[in-house]
């Protein structure tokens, strides 16, 4: 309604709060970082490909640069060698930034309780949403993303100042 009337030159008025407007914008176009670690990344690719089509949720653009992305999907096992790189990528992202931990390995180390794997990416990054599964199905990942969007929608301006 708003769009049609504005195209006709009849600009309507929408009243909303700043928080709602900004949260709406943030959820609607959240660009993930093009970043995959292991097997889970293949399911992440499936999620973006034809059958599951993640673009329906405003995520068709995967940015290869952390500077241009809002969300990092940690898809796969994080090794001790990779951990500093991952932290650096996170630090390079501009706020507001979100972290989704995809799969058992990223969430808690999964079956690999050994010398090589960081036992959960939350040891190095603040995680917003955990998605379980080895690998999680695309539907599970989409559910995780929707959960994250719900979370973002409830953010208050006081959170922005803190974050």
């Amino acid at each position: 309604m708003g769009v049609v009337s504005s195209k006709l030159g009849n600009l309507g008025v929408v009243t909303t709060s700043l928080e709602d407007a900004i949260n709406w914008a943030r959820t609607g176009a959240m660009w993930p970082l093009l970043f995959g670690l292991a097997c889970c990344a293949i399911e992440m690719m499936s999620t973006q490909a034809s059958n599951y089509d993640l673009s329906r949720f405003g995520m068709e653009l995967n940015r290869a640069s952390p500077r241009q992305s809002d969300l990092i999907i940690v898809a796969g096992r994080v090794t001790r060698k990779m951990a500093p790189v991952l932290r650096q990528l996170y630090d390079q992202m501009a706020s507001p930034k979100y972290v989704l931990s995809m799969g058992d390995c990223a969430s808690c180390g999964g079956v690999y309780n050994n010398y090589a794997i960081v036992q959960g990416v939350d040891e190095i990054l603040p995680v917003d949403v955990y998605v379980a599964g080895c690998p999680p199905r695309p539907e599970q990942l989409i559910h995780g993303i929707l959960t994250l969007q719900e979370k973002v929608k409830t953010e208050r301006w006081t959170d922005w100042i803190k974050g």
Partner: protein
Amino acid sequence: MAITPVAQPTESVAKWEGSVEELRGLVSDRAMTGETLLLNMGPHHPSTHGVLRLLLELDGEQIVTCMPDIGYLHTGIEKNIESKTYEKGVTLTDRMDYLSPMSNNMVYCLAVERLTGLDVPERAQAIRVICLELARIASHCVWLGTHALDMGAMSVFLYAFREREFILDMFEMLSGQRMMGSYFRPGGVWRDLVPEFLPALEKFVDFMPAKVGDYESLLVSNPIWIDRTQGIGVVEPEEALNLGMSGPTLRASGVNWDIRKAEPYSGYDRYEFDVPLGEHGDVYDRFFVRMQEFRQSIRIIKQAMKALPGGPFRSQNRKFVPPPRAELGQSMEAVIHHFKLWTEGFSAPDEEVYVSIESPRGEIGCYLHGTGDNKPRRVHFKTPSFMHISALGAMSKNHMLADLVGIIGSIDCVLGDSDR
């Protein structure tokens, strides 16, 4: 012509890892004076297919040295398998080469079977062949999609993943999981084919050849694709053998080596198929060979489907294979076997075996050393991606930086496979 150094060598190099001296001998001396540029590609780079890091020495856009640095995905899978019973090890092998988990299952199960002398019924062998070839097609779909995506052909990715989803759905019917099914077990497969599997498979072999034709029509005579792939990353046959290549990457150089033919396993000698070969050993030929492999895999599946034998789907040797649930209520023996196998597993002799099979990427081998007890002493996997990544330096010499992306795509490396 005098070249002005672009960056102060001490500054740019020192940031890399402590001292410049560490690089001496690895890169050319020109890098030491700043005449050539050292560039770090990865581990986070969209076209390195995972977490591969390459240290490049560039003269303008030309690659002087390319040094792969792996280990960003080292998971300790081999070590973990040592602390598991033989059957539990299968689950971990799934996660090595995550584009075709079935091949990993296969090589590990073959090694366990050879170590223990366990038999595999005919039906299980045929089911395994069908699954392995489906896995090959699924893996090639991912390779094709991402390879084309790296080179700027976006739409192939969407088409290839559509067909891959169909295969994953079939795997889900069989094993309950899309990717990491652990469907193969020592002595056969986890369960028999479900009734809806064969009709789905029939549908698949009917429509798939046309889809392969679709992919080809998008790329084979596409001038941009040809320009970017022909004559790039050429490997001569002898060089390919010296570099330890295998699989389609080796066959693209014209070497006729396919383990399915050379050392048939799981009854591959019963099926008729050709081994596609390339001539020039460049990126285009590697692409071409894999495209032909799609067709050959479909051919094998068709034959295996038609001649699918009846009988048990898993060995009946109760010392190794747990009895079906239904038997537990009737036989005390069955209860004992069930309890023994699920608590401590079976034991294997203190001997060593090496088995290799043809995975979609090349020769994947499993070295297994038993202890006489229920856990292995040492498990080691010889993986194709490891070999191919180490060949990157030789393949990319004197090429443009942009061609490196094509070369990486053409060897179809999976970092989980190389690092384990």
